[in-house]
């Protein structure tokens, strides 16, 4: 599918992979970046080329979000691959990695193939499946990791469910290593976390919410890191959210353990007090943490200890959220709010813009061996034109996602996606 050639002229190019930040222009033909022109003098161009005047706005690589849930197959009322694709495009996200806890679970190659074929037909953003690490994501028997890898899955994970049996987890790690497939795991002690809706502390106690001590994350993380070390496998620590766990993680990385940590935009943006009067849109898994934990996570992103930020997009329709707090479904949609929420740390002066953009572009691309996430000659033409300063008020009801469960509802942020291009095709534009 080759769309009409494009040129982005008069833009501020920001490419974390090369470290370039300055005026420039980009020419796109046949779905790939044909040329990158620092300074931005395009010279004479063929008439066939659609020239987009960026008006000095920011052009960055399309965002890569490696933890996205849709409801397809099985829970299409929450979100389909198509509605998630539209939401991603509107949010400047050009690549999503979908989680395997669908119905059926993505634990064998034919389901991987189904998702890839659906995504090809929909033709919005790039979609890659993550496969389940164990059959049915039940944590007992290994899934067909090798066959799924061949079919095109990027990593394996049981998504929200920790793999409790350490022997099973060890085997998954060592088996996946033979295929150079990373294993993502949510560190959460299953017994401490059972039934919890909030993090232990004064707030949860006062509100009378079932709670999990923050240390549950560290307890499981220590096991995971030790097994990653002994097997030499590539571990993705799925959503580090507490200061205590970060301390364990930092020690392991210094020791040379092959582990990469992610965190979610939600845990960077909210703390447990945002739950307020039992706002179920703030019920997340892992639950929101204390302000001290949130500050530690921001610090870890700033220092580069946490390399990748995810939206943790988890659609839940109103019927699953309009319930008493501890009965409500956890999770928040995030594809459309990821970029402006991220830019908040730039506007606050906390984290340099290029470092923020890296966590959602070149860092996840490098982690999973993806060709995108950079603005370079020959790279896929996955690009986003952004006005980083434009003020926006998030209105959950106006989100593209089928489910509207956004904790950012009503929040004032800055950053507006003007145009999203995937493989040279414009999939979203307000220009």
């Amino acid at each position: 599918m080759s769309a009409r050639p494009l040129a982005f002229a008069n833009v501020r190019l920001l490419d974390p992979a090369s470290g370039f930040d300055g005026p420039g222009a980009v020419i796109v033909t046949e779905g790939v970046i044909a040329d990158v022109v620092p300074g931005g003098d395009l010279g004479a161009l063929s008439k066939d080329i659609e020239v987009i005047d960026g008006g000095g706005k920011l052009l960055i690589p399309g965002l890569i979000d490696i933890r996205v849930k849709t409801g397809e197959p099985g829970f299409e009322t929450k979100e389909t691959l198509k509605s998630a694709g539209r939401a991603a495009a509107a949010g400047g996200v050009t690549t999503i990695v979908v989680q395997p806890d669908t119905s059926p679970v993505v634990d064998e190659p034919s389901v991987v193939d189904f998702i890839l074929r659906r995504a090809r037909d929909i033709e919005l953003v790039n979609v890659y499946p993550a496969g389940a690490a164990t059959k049915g994501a039940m944590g007992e028997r290994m899934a067909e990791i090798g066959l799924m890898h061949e079919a095109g899955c990027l990593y394996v994970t049981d998504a929200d469910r920790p793999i409790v049996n350490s022997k099973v987890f060890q085997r998954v790690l060592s088996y996946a290593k033979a295929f150079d497939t990373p294993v993502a795991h949510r560190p959460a002690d299953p017994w401490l976390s059972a039934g919890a809706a909030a993090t232990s502390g004064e707030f949860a106690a006062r509100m009378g919410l079932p709670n999990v001590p923050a240390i549950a994350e560290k307890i499981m993380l220590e096991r995971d890191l030790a097994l990653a070390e002994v097997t030499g496998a590539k571990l993705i620590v799925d959503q580090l959210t507490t200061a205590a766990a970060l301390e364990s993680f930092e020690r392991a990385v210094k020791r040379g353990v092959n582990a990469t940590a992610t965190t979610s935009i939600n845990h960077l943006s909210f703390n447990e007090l945002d739950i307020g009067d039992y706002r179920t849109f703030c019920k997340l898994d892992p639950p929101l943490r204390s302000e001290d934990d949130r500050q530690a996570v921001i610090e870890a992103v700033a220092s580069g200890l946490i390399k990748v930020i995810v939206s943790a997009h988890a659609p839940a329709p109103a019927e699953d959220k309009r319930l008493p707090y501890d009965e409500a479904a956890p999770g928040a949609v995030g594809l459309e709010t990821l970029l402006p929420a991220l830019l908040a740390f730039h506007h606050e002066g906390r984290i340099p813009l290029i470092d923020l953009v890296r966590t959602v572009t070149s860092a996840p691309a490098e982690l999973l061996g993806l060709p995108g996430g950079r603005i370079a000659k020959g790279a896929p033409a996955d690009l986003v034109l952004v006005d980083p300063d434009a003020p926006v008020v998030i209105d959950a009801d106006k989100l593209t996602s089928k489910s509207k469960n956004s904790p950012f509802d009503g929040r004032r942020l800055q950053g507006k996606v003007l145009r999203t291009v995937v493989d040279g095709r414009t999939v979203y534009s307000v220009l």
Partner: protein
Amino acid sequence: MATGAAYDRPSMSGAPTGLNEVLQRTFSFPKRHFLSATDLNEVEVANLLDLADGFVSLNRQTSKKLDLLKGRTLMNLFFENSTRTQSSFELAGKRLGADVVNMSPRSSSISKGETLIDTAVTLNAMQPDLLVIRHSSSGAASLLSQKVGCSVINAGDGQHEHPTQALLDALSMRRAFGRIAGLKVAICGDVLHSRVARSNIALLQMLGAHVRLVGPPTLIPAAADRWNVEVFHDMRKGIAGCDVVMMLRLQLERMDGVMAPSQREYFRFFGLDREKLAHAAPGVRVMHPGPMNRGVEIDSDVADDLAVSLIQDQVEMGVAARMAVLTSLAARLDNER
């Protein structure tokens, strides 16, 4: 000490010429038991293989019977089910003229709660000369050997060793290639649980072969890289340029998500088929200790191709190799008395 002529009956009537020549040779087999391939040295192995070669000729004659073990009692004590190893030892004993008794756990008092050592002491009182044991626990044969007065032969102890299998494999290879030194041998599959692999690694390395281990990381012992072998998790790379591809038996219940995700995934990546075999050296030979899981670890197309497969030869060599072991141990017993 056992030195000098090991066999007191040179020039057996009825024995093929080649066998007689070997029997007349002067060498010693100074061990009372046959427990581990690591107990042997290169000279002992060479002598055993020469002797076994002679027995192969004998076994192909119409009259296969000798009286080298006349008057001796061989007890087969198999705590694990086995068809080929047990019948192989039984035939080996009978062809050498020994009285052979088969014991199995169902008919023995082990099922009534007797310990291994009590059973050993009981059997020992019956004055056997040769005791062949297979047991599911590593080290069982060694334990038994400390409690009995006869020779103990390890026919497989847990995940430890199966030394007569390694000997018959070496015999099959030496007959197919004329040598073992310098051969590249890939041992593929469930190395983790395999006593066949452990005995073969020891014996083949002693004889100068280059050993590689091929399998998913879940089926290769974590410390295998310290066994002076090369470890591969990609089968095509692992068997590239190999002269021998030795497949190991898989227990199917381990293939359902426990050690490997499924039989179809296992076959896809670690099953031996023509396409993968094409990466091996020209003239490659395929081995398997049996019983095979066709379509899981080996394609029938390969297993049944007599130009490639040594699998039937291995069974034939098994009887001869065990005859060589029994003869050598019995000769030692003679020297003791």
